[in-house]
């Protein structure tokens, strides 16, 4: 545990020190929240939107923020590789599993903080948190998204030589995961083939879980969301740890 804590501590220190990264990665979620939220609020009313379109997408935007921050945190291992720091960690008498877990929890911490910032900003534009248990449920889902997608980022980073493939991953993997997740639209109103597709996207269960926590209603049973997302998290951590074990320096 000491080792996991040590790696976690370093990650969190680095995150808290990178003000520009914290502020910079708020940009896109806030843009979506404000433009889509206010732009479409009066136009769009669909079933499942008792809180208006803005209220509806707040959980989606929080998920987005957690998703991007966590994938990015995981992929950062490539920087450690390029700047040589990874060697220092890997040559120490510690297991790679401990290192990987420390990185994963560190990335999840950063991404949950990032999600919480969006949550707090959402309070300013009209979100009401009515129940504390609901708030805690939302946090649990944020943590699960953070853990699974940091592990996902680590898995990718373990197979990548340098940052050249980064854009590719963001455009062809992370954006589709976000787009298909029902963060911006209610999945029940979709044609059935598209609905099935969204149900294959693990982020859907995260978004729906947070939605249940914050708004009190969701289109996927929260228990199902929890089970699926937990399963996905366990799978990603195991998969990430497996690939990280074979990383070469």
């Amino acid at each position, binding site marked *: 545990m*000491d*080792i996991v*804590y*040590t790696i976690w*501590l*370093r990650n969190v*220190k*680095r995150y808290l*020190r*990178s003000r520009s990264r914290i502020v910079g990665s708020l940009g896109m979620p806030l843009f979506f929240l404000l433009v889509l939220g206010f732009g479409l609020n009066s136009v769009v009313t669909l079933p499942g939107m008792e809180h208006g379109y803005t209220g509806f997408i707040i959980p989606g935007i929080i998920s987005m923020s957690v998703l991007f921050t966590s994938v990015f945190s995981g992929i950062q291992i490539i920087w450690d590789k390029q*700047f*040589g*720091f990874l*060697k*220092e*960690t*890997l*040559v*120490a*008498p*510690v297991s790679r599993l401990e290192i990987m877990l420390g990185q994963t929890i560190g990335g999840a911490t950063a991404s949950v903080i990032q999600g919480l910032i969006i949550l707090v900003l959402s309070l300013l534009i009209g979100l009401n948190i009515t129940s504390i248990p609901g708030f805690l449920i939302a946090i649990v889902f944020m943590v699960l998204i953070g853990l699974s997608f940091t592990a996902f980022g680590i898995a990718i980073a373990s197979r990548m030589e340098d940052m050249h493939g980064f854009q590719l991953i963001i455009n062809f993997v992370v954006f589709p995961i976000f787009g298909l997740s029902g963060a911006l639209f209610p999945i029940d109103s979709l044609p059935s083939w598209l609905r099935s597709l969204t149900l294959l996207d693990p982020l859907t269960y995260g978004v729906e879980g947070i939605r249940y926590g914050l708004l009190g209603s969701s289109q996927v049973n929260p228990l199902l969301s929890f089970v699926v997302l937990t399963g996905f998290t366990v799978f990603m951590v195991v998969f990430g740890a497996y690939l990280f074990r074979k990383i070469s*320096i």
Partner: protein
Amino acid sequence: MFAIEVENLTKEFDGFVAVDNISFSIGKGEIFGLLGPNGAGKTTTMSMLSTTLKPTSGKAYVNGFDILKNEDDVRKSIGIVFQDQSLDEELTAYENMDFHGRLYRVPKEERQKKIAELLKLVELEDKKDNLVKTYSGGMRRRLEIARGLLHEPDVLFLDEPTLGLDPQTRNHLWDYIEKLNGEKGITLILTTHYMDEADKLCNRVAIIDRGKIIASDTPEKLKDSIGGDVITIHSPQKNDLYEIIKDQTWVKHLDLHDSSLTISLQNAGQHVAEIVNLSSEKGISIDDISIHKPTLEDVFLHYTGRTIREEEANTKDRMRMMQRVRR
């Protein structure tokens, strides 16, 4: 007992043999140098000994532990300063040290005490709370060495410890390395392609070229082995000169290079006049002639037929230095 024993160690990368069946051993408390040009296989050897790279074949023991079977014990008992930087720039010097101490499970009180002590030793204590990205190349190197010592390793690996440093900082580091070895009895294995560094620091040197160890002994014996003196001659007709000198009885060894001719012999002073006379008889002009005691450079030349500098004209080295500075 030996600090390091290496038996027929080999590393191939996709059929390319980077380290070719090398064997050597290092006694406890020795300063041992691996000397060789770029690409000789020094770093690859270090990586195998520090368990970060699996050998293709062969065996090695570090502090008595098998590098293949007791990876963790090997790792606990060594410290390593990598050729390329391995600090976290976004952390302070103290935090980098602290991270290392925790990774090696040094208990808190001891950790704090040792960090303070080591930072003082490398003269960084007043800058300990500055981010490493504000450090100069020399300061970073000193920090890396301090970090490598934090968990009190029995063997310290230094891969090109003074690459890209100015002469003053190099001298400083040399003193420091000698002190470490003298006071703490740490066994040091260092790689370098600076001949003077190997000569000054090392008790024993292995000259490595293209993956093979071609000579291994104390610097003195290596230098003695090629004869008492070396004469270097620059001449436009060096080939003709080679022909007339090669049959002289006093020549111990003769080498022809791109721009010069070197002769190993005893009592060079007596024979210089003879060389000059012979060449003027044959109408061979000489641009420059000099006598010096053999250096490790001459040893390298003797065994490989090349000077280490010819090899070094390579840009890799300079690029690395620039990277170091930019970072």
